[in-house]
């Protein structure tokens, strides 16, 4: 989401610069050659619109546009200022150096760890890293055999991945639905 807002910010920034440049050129031309070009505010569409606004107070359309602009401004501010979600999980950071891992690598590790748990037929890990270091959420879906208890499998998976998840400061959530028929138990 933040990545999208950053992209939007860059695009709008670029378009705004072009619009400002054209507007500046227009104002300069109007100021320099207004009389010769026949640019006059009195009696123009802009003048009538301003008079209507002053006369009847806020109009619905203008209010919607204004509100939209405020919301857009807020979204752009968030896009500019909010930190991006981390793509790397930091395991250690200190005078001995840093150890970090990419999200994909960690996801594979967690999946492999969960799949080797007894009673699990198939596992899938989803890792969501936080904006701050050592913050994130690990959701594990460990499909189990019919002969196993959901609670037991959840606990077994939790103990299998717990040490690694704790080292990266991840909160764990394990789900253990019944696996499809034909899948082998580990």
């Amino acid at each position, binding site marked *: 989401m933040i990545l999208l807002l950053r992209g939007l910010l860059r695009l709008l920034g670029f378009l705004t610069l072009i619009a400002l440049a054209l507007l500046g050129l227009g104002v300069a031309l109007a100021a320099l050659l207004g009389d010769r070009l026949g640019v006059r505010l009195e009696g123009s569409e802009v003048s009538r619109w301003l008079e209507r606004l002053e006369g009847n107070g806020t109009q619905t359309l203008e209010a919607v546009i204004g509100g939209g602009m405020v919301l857009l401004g807020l979204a752009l501010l968030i896009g500019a200022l909010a930190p991006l979600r981390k793509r790397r999980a930091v*395991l250690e950071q200190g005078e001995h*150096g*840093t150890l*970090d891992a990419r999200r994909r*690598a960690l996801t*594979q*590790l967690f999946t492999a760890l969960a799949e080797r748990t007894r009673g699990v037929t198939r596992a899938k890990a989803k890792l969501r890293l936080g904006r701050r270091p050592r913050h994130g959420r690990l959701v594990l879906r460990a499909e189990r055999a019919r002969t196993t208890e959901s609670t037991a499998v959840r606990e077994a998976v939790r103990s299998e991945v717990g040490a690694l998840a704790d080292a990266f400061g991840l909160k764990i959530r394990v789900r253990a639905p019944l696996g499809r028929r034909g899948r082998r138990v580990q």
Partner: protein
Amino acid sequence: MSSPAQVPTSASLRLRLAALVRAAALATPGVVDLDAGRMGIRMTASEGLRVDGVVCAALPGGRYQASVHLVAAMVALHPLADAVRARVQRDAAIAGMAARLAPVEVAVEDVRAPVEASL
């Protein structure tokens, strides 16, 4: 891609250190490969030579910071990083460059199963 044997002694210290770190990391059990990234930007280049998977940058005080970007086997990451650092330190001491090397940063870029790794 260069190994210490391929990097001439006349090459810059930065490049020689990067090659040493790369060779040491690859010789560590549990390290399958080094990864320069999709765009190949995780590397150290100098004088027409390049060392993939190791970013070596100069620090104030004449030391160098090496970041090694590796593909690990399915092993515990903490002991793996310690083993890589120990191996790098040992090789750097043998080569007489230990004093110029800051603590090594280890980045796990990917994980490969042993079966896949042996292919």
